[in-house]
C-alpha cells in the first residue's frame, strides 16, 4: 500500500496554515503593544505526528517515518511569575510613600510655616499688642487692639484646625472608597478565575482572560499589600493582611468572611472598612491611613497648645485688676472655655472634637486687666507686664517649652517626617522602576522583534505557496501523460 498522491499537498497546506496563524499572533502582539496588562504572546510550533505512527500489518512499506508538516500547538503568554510578584510588591511600596508624600505636602501647606502670616505670627502679634498696652494702659485704642489680636489669633488657628479636619475626613472617605474598590476587584478576579479554570480544563489557553486578571492584580497591589498564590487549576487565590479575599468558592468583603455582594451587607459599615484599612502595611491605602494619623496627631497637638495657652492667659487676666473689679468679682476671662467644634459628628468614622479659641464675646475694653493684684490706678501696668512675660515662660504642659518653641517643634516635626518620606519616595521609585523594567523585559512587545518575525514568516508563507504551485504543476504534468 502506498501513501496518498496528495500527501505533499496536505503538508504544504499545513505550512501555509502555520505561517498564517503565526502572522495572526504577530498582528495581535503589535495591536496590543501598548495595552496595559498585556503580555507578549508566543506561538509554539510543533511537528505533526509522523506517518505511520505505529507499525501495523496494513502499514505501507516505507523507509522510516515521514513527517506530516507543522502546526501551532499553543499560544502562550511570556511572563515570569517571580518578576510579576516582585514588581507588584515594589509598586505597592512606591504608591504608599508617594501618597503619604502628597498628603504631607498638603499638611505643610495648611500650616504655612515659616511665613509671616501664620500661627506663630498671630501669637507674636497678640503678645506685641500687650507690650504696646503696657506702655499706655489707659489707651482705649491699645485695649481694642488687644481684643482684635486675640480674635485674629483665634481665627488663624481655627482656619488651620478646620482645614486639617477637612483633609482628615476627605482621606477617610477616600480610604473607605478604596476598600470598596478592592472588594469589587477581588470579585472580578473570582469571576475570571472561574472562567479561566473552565477554559484550561478544555485544554485551551485563556490568554485574554489572564491578561485581564493580571491587570486587576496590578491595580490591587498598588492599593494594598495583597499576597496571591496560583493554584494548580489555574485560579489565583488572594489573601490580604491575614484575611482571605478570593478562594475557590467565593470572594469576600475585605477583613470579614462575608461573601461579596453589591451593595455590601449592612453590617459592613464605613467604620469596619476603615478599621481593616488601618492594618494594611503597604499600598496607597496604607499611605492614606498614615496621613490621616498625621493629621490627627497635629490636631491633638494643636489642642494641647491652645488649651495651655488659653488657660495661662485667662489665669493672668483673672488675677489682675481693672478699675471696677474686686476680689469678689474678678475681671472676666479673655477666652471662653470650653469651646470646641463638632467634628466628631460630621466624621463618625474617625473624627473627634477639637478646640476653637474663642474670645469672650462680652469682653469690653475696660475689662482688660492691666492692673496688678491690687488696683494701682489707670497707669498700673503690672498685669500687662506679666502677660508680656508669659511669652518667654516655660510651660509644664508643653514639656517645658515656651509657646513659640512648641509651635516651632510642631512645624519642624512635620518637616522632618516629610523630608524622610521624600527620601523614601525616591528610593522606592528607583526600585519600582527597576523591577518594572525587568518585568517588561520578559513581557512587553518589541516591535522590532515582531517586524523581523513578520518578515521571516512572510518568506515561509511565500515558500510554502510556491511549493503548492509547483506541486500543482507536477499534477498537471501527470495529467498530460494520460491522453
Amino acid at each position, binding site marked *: 500500500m502506498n501513501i496518498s498522491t496528495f500527501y505533499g499537498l496536505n503538508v504544504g497546506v499545513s505550512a501555509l496554515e502555520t505561517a498564517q496563524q503565526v502572522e495572526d499572533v504577530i498582528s495581535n502582539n503589535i495591536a496590543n*503593544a501598548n495595552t496595559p496588562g498585556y503580555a507578549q504572546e508566543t506561538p509554539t510550533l510543533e511537528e505533526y505526528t509522523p506517518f505511520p505512527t505505529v507499525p501495523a500489518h496494513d502499514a505501507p512499506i516505507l523507509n522510516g517515518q515521514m513527517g506530516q508538516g507543522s502546526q501551532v500547538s499553543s499560544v502562550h503568554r511570556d511572563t515570569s511569575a517571580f518578576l510579576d510578584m516582585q514588581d507588584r510588591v515594589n509598586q505597592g511600596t512606591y504608591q504608599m510613600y508617594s501618597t503619604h508624600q502628597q498628603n504631607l*505636602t498638603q499638611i*505643610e501647606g495648611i*500650616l504655612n*510655616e*515659616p511665613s509671616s502670616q501664620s500661627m*506663630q*505670627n498671630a501669637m*507674636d502679634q497678640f*503678645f*506685641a499688642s500687650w*507690650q*504696646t498696652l*503696657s*506702655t*499706655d494702659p*489707659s489707651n482705649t485704642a491699645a485695649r481694642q487692639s488687644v481684643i482684635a489680636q486675640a480674635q485674629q489669633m483665634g481665627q488663624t488657628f481655627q482656619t488651620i484646625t478646620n482645614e486639617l479636619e477637612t483633609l482628615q475626613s476627605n482621606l477617610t472617605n477616600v480610604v473607605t472608597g478604596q476598600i470598596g474598590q478592592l472588594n469589587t476587584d477581588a470579585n472580578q478576579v473570582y469571576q475570571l478565575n472561574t472562567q479561566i479554570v473552565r477554559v484550561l480544563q478544555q485544554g485551551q489557553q485563556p490568554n485574554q482572560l489572564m491578561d485581564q486578571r493580571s491587570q486587576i492584580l496590578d491595580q490591587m497591589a498598588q492599593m494594598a499589600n495583597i499576597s496571591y498564590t496560583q493554584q494548580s487549576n489555574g485560579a489565583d487565590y488572594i489573601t490580604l493582611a491575614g484575611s482571605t479575599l478570593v478562594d475557590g468558592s467565593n470572594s469576600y468583603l475585605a477583613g470579614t468572611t462575608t461573601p461579596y455582594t453589591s451593595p455590601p451587607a449592612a453590617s459592613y459599615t464605613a467604620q469596619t472598612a476603615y478599621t481593616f484599612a488601618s492594618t494594611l502595611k503597604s499600598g496607597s491605602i496604607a499611605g492614606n491611613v498614615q496621613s490621616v494619623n498625621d493629621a490627627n496627631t497635629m490636631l491633638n497637638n494643636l489642642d494641647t497648645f491652645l488649651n495651655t495657652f488659653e488657660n495661662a492667659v485667662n489665669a493672668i487676666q483673672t488675677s489682675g485688676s481693672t478699675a471696677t473689679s474686686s476680689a469678689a468679682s474678678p475681671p472676666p476671662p479673655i477666652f471662653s472655655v470650653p469651646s470646641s467644634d463638632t467634628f466628631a459628628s460630621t466624621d463618625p468614622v474617625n473624627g473627634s472634637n477639637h478646640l476653637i479659641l474663642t474670645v469672650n464675646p462680652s469682653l469690653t475694653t475696660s475689662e482688660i486687666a492691666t492692673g496688678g493684684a*491690687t*488696683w*494701682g*490706678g*489707670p*497707669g*498700673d*501696668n*503690672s498685669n500687662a*507686664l506679666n502677660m*508680656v*512675660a508669659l*511669652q*518667654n515662660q516655660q510651660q509644664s504642659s508643653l514639656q517645658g517649652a515656651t509657646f*513659640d*518653641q512648641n*509651635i*516651632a*517643634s510642631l*512645624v*519642624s*516635626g*512635620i*518637616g*522632618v517626617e*516629610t*523630608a524622610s518620606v*521624600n527620601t523614601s519616595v525616591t528610593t522606592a*521609585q528607583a526600585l519600582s*522602576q527597576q523591577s518594572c*523594567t*525587568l518585568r*517588561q*523585559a*520578559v513581557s*512587553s*512587545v*518589541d*516591535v*522590532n*522583534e515582531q*517586524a*523581523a518575525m513578520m518578515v521571516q514568516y512572510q518568506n515561509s508563507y511565500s515558500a510554502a505557496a510556491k511549493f503548492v504551485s509547483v506541486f500543482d504543476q507536477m499534477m498537471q504534468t501527470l495529467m498530460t501523460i494520460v491522453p
Partner: protein
Amino acid sequence: MRITQSMMTQDFLYNITNDNSRMANLENQLSTGKTLNEPSDNPLAVSQDMSINATLSETTGYQNAISQGLTWMNNTSSALSNLNSALQQIQELTLNGVNGTNQDPAALNALSATAQQMVGDVSQIMDSQQGTRYLFGGTATQTAPSSYVLGSTPPPTGASSNLSLLVAAGIEIPVNVTATSLMLTIPTGGTADLSQTLTSIVADLKSGNQGNLSTDLQNLNAGMSQVTGLEADLGSREVRMNALNSQMSQYSNLVTNEKGVIEDANMAQVITQFNTDQTVYQAALKLGSQVLLPTLVSYLP
C-alpha cells in the same frame, strides 16, 4: 535582557521627570529668594528660623517700649528743670524776706503775692501731661497731682507707684518721678515736705515771721536738693535706657542677618545649578527623541 519600546519610553520619562522636578525646585528658590520655603526643605533650620522670628518680634516690642520710655523721661526731665527754676525764684523771695530789709506790710504783701504766684507755677508744673496722662501722677495717671500735692485731698492709690516698662527680657525700668516723692516726702536735713514748706512760706512772708522763715528756708533748701537728687536719679535711668536702645538695635540687626543666613538662597549658586540642569534637560530631550522614533517597520519596503 530584551529591550522593548515601552521600556525605553518609560526610562526616558523617568529621567525627564527627575530633571523636571530638580529644575522646579530650583525655580522655586529663584523666585522666592529663599532656600527655606517648606518645613521639609530643612527641618532643623525651620525650627531655628521660627525662634528667630519670635525673637525679632519681641525685640521690636522692646524697642517700641524704649522709645516710649525715653519720651516720657525727656518730658519729665524738662518739667523738673522748670520746677528747679521756679523753686529757685521762691528761694530768692524767701531770702529777701529773711534778710528783713523789707519790713513794711505792703512790701511783705507784695512778696507773699509773688510767692503765691510762684507756688501756682509749681502747681502747674506738677500737672504736666503727656497726652492725657499726668507725668508726675505715678500710676494714678488720670488724677491731677496738684489736687493732692498742694491741695487737701489725700493722694489716690498708685500716686507713689513706679511706672515701669519692660525694655528687655526680664528688665523693667521705671520711667517716672512721682509728685509725692517730690512734694510729699520729708527731705533729709529738713523737718517738713515741700508742699508744707511752700504753703508756710507764703503765709510766713505775709506775716513777716522771721523765725519761721529761716526754718522755711532750711526746709526749702533741703527740698530743692531732694528735687536735684531725684533729677539725677532720673538722669541715670535715662542713660540706661539709651544704652539699651543702641544695644537693642544692634541685636535686631544681628538677628536679622542670622535669619538671612539660614533662609536666603545664594543666588549665584542657584542660577549656576539651574543652568547646568537646563543643559542636561535639553540634551536628554534631543537625544531621547532620536532614540525613540525609528523602528524596523519604517525601513521595511
